[in-house]
């Protein structure tokens, strides 16, 4: 695989490995993420898909004893280069987490504006917030209670608030770590629909446990599996329709037909 980001690819990894102390959790992954498409990372628990995702915005390294080798190229520039500011990287690559995590002491409005859009007038800030909340399909539900606590929202609403918070920073890439894992089926359907509509504007990389979800929302699917030494490896990546119908690797076929994991 070539590591140079072709115009169709906004984000790519090159021989990326991630460690927790001495343990290598992700091994030598080279993968490219297509611009304005949804890429799903699937695989059984412990295959390193979340760790891989967390390397893409350099949030992996904030954990104690966590380490990364290899490169991650955003528009051709290595985000792990020594002159790269991780804060700036994270502003360009947003993230939504497994469990909704709005800031409990900030109002709904301040949550959306938490990315620190300084130098805007009050009016402009409201516009930014409204645009983000509309894009996250939450505006109509919260427009009358922007000053209230986010903790009174339902789980699905909180997760959409977190999506609004992430996209208010106007990132180029949106990482989603099992964004529906803690939600009920109805809220899950709303988020899935949202992922499809957000893909028109953002590049989305989403980790999911749920193969049906990957099939429903993603354009490209990557399958990961831990090898016998518990190192997460990228097994296969292809258009979602191809991967689920004609997998090239027997291990992928075993997984998607439910033979393990």
């Amino acid at each position: 695989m070539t590591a140079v980001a072709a115009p169709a690819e906004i984000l790519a990894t090159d021989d990326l490995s991630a460690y927790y102390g001495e343990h290598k959790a992700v091994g030598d992954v080279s993968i490219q993420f297509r611009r304005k498409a949804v890429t799903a990372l699937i695989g059984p628990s412990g295959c390193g898909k979340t760790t891989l995702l967390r390397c893409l915005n350099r949030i992996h390294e904030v954990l104690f004893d966590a380490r990364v080798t290899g490169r991650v190229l955003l528009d051709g520039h290595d985000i792990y280069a020594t002159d790269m500011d991780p804060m700036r990287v994270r502003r360009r690559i947003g993230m939504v987490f497994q469990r909704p995590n709005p800031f409990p002491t900030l109002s709904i409005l301040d949550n959306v504006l938490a990315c620190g859009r300084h130098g805007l007038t009050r009016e402009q800030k409201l516009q930014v917030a409204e645009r983000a909340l509309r894009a996250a399909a939450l505006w109509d539900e919260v427009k009358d209670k922007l000053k209230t606590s986010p903790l009174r929202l339902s789980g699905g609403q909180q997760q959409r608030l977190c999506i609004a918070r992430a996209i208010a920073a106007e990132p180029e890439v949106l990482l989603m770590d099992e964004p529906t894992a803690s939600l009920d089926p109805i809220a899950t359907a709303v988020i899935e629909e949202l992922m499809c509509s957000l893909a028109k504007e953002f590049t989305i990389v989403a980790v999911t446990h749920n193969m049906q979800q990957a099939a429903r929302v993603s354009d490209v699917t990557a399958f990961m599996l831990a090898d016998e030494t518990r190192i997460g490896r990228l097994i296969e990546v292809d258009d979602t329709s191809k991967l689920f119908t004609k997998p090239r690797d027997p291990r992928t076929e075993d997984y998607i037909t439910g033979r393990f994991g």
Partner: protein
Amino acid sequence: MENAQPGGAPQFRRVARFVSPTDRGFAAIVYAGSALFALLILGLFIELLLGSWPSIAKFGPAFIWHSAWNPIANQFGALPMIYGTVVTSLIAIILAAFIGILAAVYLADFAPRWLAAPLSFLIELLAAVPSVVYGLWGLFVLAPFVRTSIGPALQSVLGWTPLFSGPIYGVGLLTGGLILALMIVPTVTAISRDVVAAIPRDLREASMALGSTKWETAMRVVLPAARVGVFGACVLALGRALGETIAVTMVIGNRPEISASLFAPSYTLASVIANEFTEATTDIYISALIQLGLILFFVSVVVNALARVMIWSVRGSERTL
């Protein structure tokens, strides 16, 4: 009793719950334990009230705002001690909260692991040092240092305010407040650190993922989320400062006077009781000292009650902001 009769309101069948004898015995012990606490507080209050009754009857409410304390002339007023207690405790809690909260954030979020564990242990150790040791150190090290260094430095900058004017004795309100701050800073730090460390990692990562620095994350997300617990830590520490006796007695100068300057000697409720109880010869003198204890008791109750109310209002306002 059977289930609902036709047409009647549905009735729930009462099931006789089996309660094991050991459970019943245990429940009795627990109830007795909690009743004991209530009784203790009530008994303490009654005892204080009875002991101070001669003084209350003689001086009336004016005892609280009278500023003369002259046992020889049978003049007893509590105001200088109330003033000294409040001022030293305020100095202590302002300094201790500032330092302790920052230290807690450092220990929980910034310090490398090999440093955080021994540092935390040291801080907890500080909390266990007997207060008389603090008092000795305060008398022989801190008070001279205030007289020769801290005091003159403060005076050269802020000497134009009444707070920092006048002669610097070394012993006085400021030294009392400093020694108290030192004594309660471990409490603030240790409890705040636990509270801050208990804030979920999720929240920190959410903030970091938006491009915030660790410092911004700590100040804008972690500390606000921990505010109720941190506030509780400060109140607990304030309670200790209000009642602390021996260390303050050794460095405050023991003079029942009110002066605007923080360099002036003063007295606290606790230290006057400790100092003068053995030499109180007349009944009214003893009774006045007990009434000081009653006032201290009240001040502590009021501070804790205020803290409770503030915690409740913070929790309540979270619903609407």
